[in-house]
């Protein structure tokens, strides 16, 4: 039998639908006592992953474990894990109460449980109505009621907010949080971070069937650093002055400005004044969580050419990168041509820009984020997917490991 820990472990899950790799070597762990968001754009493989975990889809490789066991060995699985996978699994002519009684019988709970869960999800008055006449929001509630029949230790929800009105979403949020607070496990998928941002504690972010980020949401939130975009008369002089002040988060952006992170605009202006550098433009920019999420997950269909912008990462590393300010490599002049849209303003940076910029920060944070999980497994669960990436897009080398290869990164940047 299962071990009753309430832990979900996904190990190297892979699913190939014909020529389509829906999920590639995906690994993560979900711990009890928290709400974990399972995030990724549409088509990233979320639903397939959840269905593999629940024994509905046979993985091509890898395994999904619930309480240390595959789904098929849980005994009476609905007592362990309840799942809301789609708001469509109802016979339109069957009443809500009868629907629940069918599955109450299958699970072996008394019929009165059907009425209890109807009340719980706020469908008490609709029990005798046929599910075919339900709105999408009511169907979501009925699906949740079905998942709750066996009073499971673990709840898995696939896009449960679809069709819910704001009131319903607020209700669901409170419900899931209290469910997790009672020591149980909640895994909830969404393609919108904003939708679950206030609900989840931990996040697993996937894209192209691979894990992009795995850790606490707070760590991810900490990365919402402001940065200052400055256009000085003399880039080299300003960079040197900033470095003297101990400011290292300096990057060159493609239009010739430099981006300084971790400082306020007036500090940069003061430094420039001291160094005798004129400032032609100064702008503060805040990267929000949603954009960070977008950066982590976009590129699913991106052209490999964007990897050129990995180069400026070099400026995070003083030693190899610094000299290039004086003599930017030819690549820099050509960069603006790579953009479809002219780099007219950093309120709306072109996609390529965001890509190289943020992920490195995210991945540097990972080692901090990871230990927050109560019991980190011995082997690094998010290491593998990244090693296998065939695309070589900008995020990949940096994900691989945070600190050790930073110098290598710098070297790479210098050469570009």
């Amino acid at each position: 039998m299962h071990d009753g820990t309430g832990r979900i472990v996904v190990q190297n899950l892979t699913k190939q639908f014909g020529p389509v790799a829906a999920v590639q070597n995906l690994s993560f762990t979900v711990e009890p006592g928290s709400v974990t968001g399972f995030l990724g754009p549409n088509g990233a493989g979320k639903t397939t992953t959840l269905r593999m975990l629940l024994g509905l889809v046979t993985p091509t490789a890898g395994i999904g474990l619930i309480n240390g066991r595959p789904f098929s060995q849980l005994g009476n699985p609905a007592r362990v894990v309840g799942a809301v996978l789609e708001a469509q699994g109802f016979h339109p002519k069957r009443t809500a109460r009868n629907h629940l009684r069918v599955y109450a019988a299958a699970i072996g709970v008394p019929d009165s449980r059907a009425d209890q869960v109807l009340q719980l999800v706020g469908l008490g008055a609709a029990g005798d109505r046929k599910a075919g006449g339900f709105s999408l929001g009511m169907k979501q509630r009925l699906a949740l009621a079905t998942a709750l029949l066996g009073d499971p230790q673990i709840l898995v929800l696939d896009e449960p907010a679809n069709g819910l009105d704001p009131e319903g979403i607020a209700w669901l949020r409170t419900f899931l949080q209290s469910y997790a607070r009672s020591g149980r496990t909640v895994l909830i998928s969404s393609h919108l971070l904003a939708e679950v941002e206030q609900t989840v504690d931990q996040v697993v972010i996937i894209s192209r069937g691979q894990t992009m980020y795995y850790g606490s949401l707070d760590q991810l939130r900490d990365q919402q650093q402001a940065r200052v975009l400055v256009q000085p008369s003399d880039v080299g002089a300003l960079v040197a002055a900033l470095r003297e002040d101990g400011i290292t988060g300096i990057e060159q952006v493609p239009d010739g400005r430099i981006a300084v992170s971790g400082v306020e605009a007036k500090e940069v202006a003061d430094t420039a004044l001291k160094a005798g550098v004129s400032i032609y433009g100064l702008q503060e920019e805040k990267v929000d969580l949603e954009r960070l999420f977008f950066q982590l997950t976009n590129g699913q269909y991106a052209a490999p050419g964007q990897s050129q912008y990995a180069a400026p990462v070099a400026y995070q590393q003083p030693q190899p990168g610094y000299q290039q300010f004086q003599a930017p490599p030819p690549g820099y002049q050509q960069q603006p041509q790579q953009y479809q849209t002219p780099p007219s303003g950093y309120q709306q940076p072109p996609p390529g820009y965001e890509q190289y910029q943020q992920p490195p920060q995210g991945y540097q944070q990972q080692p901090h984020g990871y230990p927050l999980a109560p019991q980190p497994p011995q082997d690094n669960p998010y290491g593998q997917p990244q090693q296998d990436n065939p695309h070589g897009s900008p995020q990949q080398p940096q994900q691989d490991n945070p600190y050790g290869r930073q110098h290598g990164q710098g070297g790479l940047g210098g050469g570009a």
Partner: protein
Amino acid sequence: MGNLIKAEFRKTTTTGLWWGLMIPTVLLAFGWALGTGAIFKTVSDFMGSSDAEELATLLNVDPSQWQMSVFGIARSINVATIFPMIFGGLAIANEINRKTITTTFLTAPNRVSALGAKMVVYVLWGAIFGVAIVASVSIGIALTSNSGSLPDAGGWLALAGVGILSSILMTMFGVGVGALMTSVVGTTVVLLLYMLIVENGLQLVLSSQGVPEIIGFLPNGAVNGLTGSVASSLFLANAGVVPDEMVEVLRAIAGALGAFDWWLSGLIFLVWTALFFLGGWAATQRKDIT
């Protein structure tokens, strides 16, 4: 397992499908029984007339002993079992179509037990439909037949037994085809087209080509043979001397042309049922529920 059987049974009773199909089943069985009873009554009345008496004497047979009604019973049962077959056909096709199969598999320890429970419930439903069919047919036949042409208690029991058996087998045959096709409309159309038109056409061709024996191996031929063979055996056992050339004609009337003995026909149809049922089971067992 008991829980799952209860759940599967509730699934069938909480939608209108069962009585939606039960009504036409009963009406069709009753109607066919009335009709065939009337037809065979006319035939035996004619055989009892003075004109036919000479012929009967010539052939050395005694029409007053002919239990013509057994043919009516066999034919009516055959026709009515179309409905339990459709009922079975929708068992898995409907679940896949309505996506309720997801929850079914999520609330069962494994797929084997979920499908096993479904099998038990549909065997039960096949029997329920079978009892309804046999009862309707018996009443219909009794209303329009001469009492002399009705089978005795033993004969009736034998017919009732194979009637219920063929209803169960037809239901399971439907379940298998439905699980393989996974489409509600496709399953219904294919089952009806095959049983009502395609195989009747095949039977016509086979008998005109002088190889009616093959008919007994076809699904519809085999299931018809189940009731038809019992009917013709009953008839022959009580009819006294019947010329050999008449036997084939009688079997054709019973709907058992080319069919084997009832038990062999039953076995042949069981093989067909098992083939589709196990095929459908295997497909559902391995299916990715997306």
